[in-house]
């Protein structure tokens, strides 16, 4: 204790200097119990999504085991689908689905990218929001409506073109139609299925790439104009390179969607079990279509076979879509550099 004669200042100066006391106070305080519970609830909701995905895989695997055990490796090499006779496999179902998806992408990618460029770069400013809504609406049209429209509206109008191609460009084997040609030999083909699926894929690719395009930095756009670029020159040298990652991801997502499309194709195709590489013949099939058309004849064995096919489809689309989302998000994060 200091004597009462000294002033407060002197006593302060006389006090020993404590150097080690300079510890920063903790910035975060302990969370309240309500907060902890709340964060726990949110975390479990996030976890629930993972759990659902896991459950899908688990139950498909459980139900598919007996089919896999019975068929063994021949599941991947058998062409036909006769579970009763124990001969079933996906060696043509899977490629036929890929063929349909490929036709869909060949048509959808140019149209969708052009639409995206139009909406984000060329359209007048006040038309932009209605156009975005239009693309969203196209994505919201139910696939059963696409199916009805494809069978009753598109098919009669597309037969003439298919017939002309198959008769005059038949030296390309893809376009050849075997057997006698009548109008009905061009219906229900892989080609028509691919065209209808392409319409469903267009809005997916268009909306993602539009979003990516519209984020191309304004400074580089103006730089391109200042160097004398025309509008297309600017798009080609600034917007497209900038959105490349997003475009690739969008196309992959579109592929995943095309692989999984079911109902429209179930209405259009006439399922065959050969490789459908004559695109204009009555043909075409895919895993999803087989499941939709055959689940009713369900003895447990047949059902197990369908589950096995569904598992393959699930794994493929999950991988493709996850890769696509990684590609898209990476291209997004790279863009925040301006």
């Amino acid at each position: 204790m200091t004597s009462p004669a000294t002033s407060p200042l002197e006593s302060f100066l006389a006090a020993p200097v404590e150097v080690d006391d300079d510890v920063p106070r903790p910035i975060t305080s302990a969370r309240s119990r309500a907060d902890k519970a709340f964060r726990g609830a949110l975390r479990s909701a996030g976890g629930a999504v993972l759990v659902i995905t896991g459950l899908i895989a688990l139950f498909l695997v459980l139900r598919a085991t007996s089919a896999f055990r019975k068929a063994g490796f021949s599941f991947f090499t058998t062409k036909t689908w006769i579970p009763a006779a124990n001969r079933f496999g996906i060696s043509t179902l899977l490629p036929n689905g890929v063929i349909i998806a490929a036709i869909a992408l060949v048509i959808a990618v140019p149209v969708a990218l052009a639409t995206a460029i139009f909406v984000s770069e060329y359209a007048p400013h006040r038309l932009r929001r209605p156009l975005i809504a239009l693309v969203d609406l196209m994505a919201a049209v139910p696939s059963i409506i696409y199916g009805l429209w494809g069978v009753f509206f598109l098919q009669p109008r597309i037969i003439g073109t298919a017939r002309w191609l198959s008769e005059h460009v038949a030296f390309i084997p893809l376009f050849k139609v075997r057997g006698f040609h009548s109008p009905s030999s061009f219906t229900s083909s892989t080609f028509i299925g691919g065209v209808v699926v392409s319409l469903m894929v267009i809005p997916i690719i268009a909306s993602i790439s539009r979003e990516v395009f519209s984020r191309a930095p304004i400074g580089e756009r103006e730089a391109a104009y200042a160097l004398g670029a025309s509008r297309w020159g600017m798009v080609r040298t600034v917007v497209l390179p900038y959105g490349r990652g997003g475009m690739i991801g969008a196309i992959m997502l579109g592929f995943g969607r095309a692989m999984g499309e079911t109902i429209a194709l179930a209405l259009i195709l006439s399922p065959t079990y050969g490789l459908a590489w004559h695109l204009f013949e009555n043909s075409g099939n895919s895993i999803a279509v087989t499941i939709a058309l055959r689940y009713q004849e369900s003895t447990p064995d047949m059902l197990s076979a369908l589950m096995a096919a569904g598992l393959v489809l699930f794994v493929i689309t999950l991988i493709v879509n996850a890769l696509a989302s990684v590609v898209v998000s990476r291209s997004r994060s790279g863009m925040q550099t301006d």
Partner: protein
Amino acid sequence: MTDTLERQTERMERIDAPGIAEADAAPPRAAGALTRIVIRSVSAASCTALFGAALAAIALTWVLYERVLPLSGALGFWMCTYLAFLLMYAGVSRTQVPGRVVVDRVVTVLVASAGLLVLAIVLDQIGYVVFRGWDAIRHENFVSQTMSLAGPLDPLTSGGMLHALVGSLEQMAIATVVSVPLGVFAALFLVEVGGPLARPVRTIVEAMTALPEIIAGLFIYAFVVLSLGIDQSGFAAALALTVMMIPIVTRSAEVILRLVPGGLREASYALGASQVRTVFTVVLPTARSGLATAVILAMARAVGETSPVLLTAGFTSGMNADPFSGPQVSLPLYIYSYVRFPQPTMVARAFGAGLALMVMVLVLFALARLVGGKTPGELSKRQMRRMQRVSGPAVESRAVTTDPQLSEG
């Protein structure tokens, strides 16, 4: 006359694309003369080139395609016309402007026609369904009766789709009630909590958004129907729709919640609010409009899905208002089942249901545009009025200014 017109367009095009002006030898003009720069110009010559090329292409294709060559089919006709139009437009433009501007013009036509094609397809689908569906839906009994007493050969004056309408609404309601809280909570987890679990959850959610719908049906069939022993019913169908909806709701809600300005959260924390309170009184109300849009769009997706319902709902031609027992049909399933009948009346019924489904989707879509489309924090007119009433006119100027963070989204 033509000469002056040509020179005028030439000048305009040169202004349109300044780089070209130097490449081509410019006609002698007073150096330093000031001309107003017009970024985008529509001249008489460019319009004439466009419409002339279009007319010429239609005429030429009609002669060749319809009269000379043995071709048929509307699609082929329009594709040939389009090709001829592009070639002619490029040719005509080449006589007016230099090469790079020709490329620019042709590309403009290409991308604009892609936009028009999308518009045409959507309008055509809606129009065609209305056209074919009107036959059935104009009969009053179509919306007030079920198919329990009508056979495939009965005329359109008996039987209807009431049971499918009820089923669709009930299944959509159940799926919404289950999936929206879960989806929004998962989105809140991604935005507000984060951590090492967030990245896999986000990737899986994005992958599941494009999950083949038939897989959702197959999963519920394997899990609920086969393993839990619950029969095919409206509830099982709603669960399949839930599996589809959760990732969709989560993804779009996450995008919306990310737009909530961080400053609002920080202000709430600075006032001493806990995280629960911040989320429920600041974050969610701010994003209300966008969240409503996300939910309604997900509902529109769910009501139109066929394949999840196909495996899980079963089929009945009569009314079943109880989703928990017995098969329950919904509109997409009704369409899918009846369109495959050979009788024209059944196909007409399918189209009638298609029209009803399309109307439901359009109404939901319009509703989503109506309530939503606003970024978080943007006030509607009514909210603005209320705010002024509460805190006096002084607040007006502040309410109008948008947060700089918002415009980035």
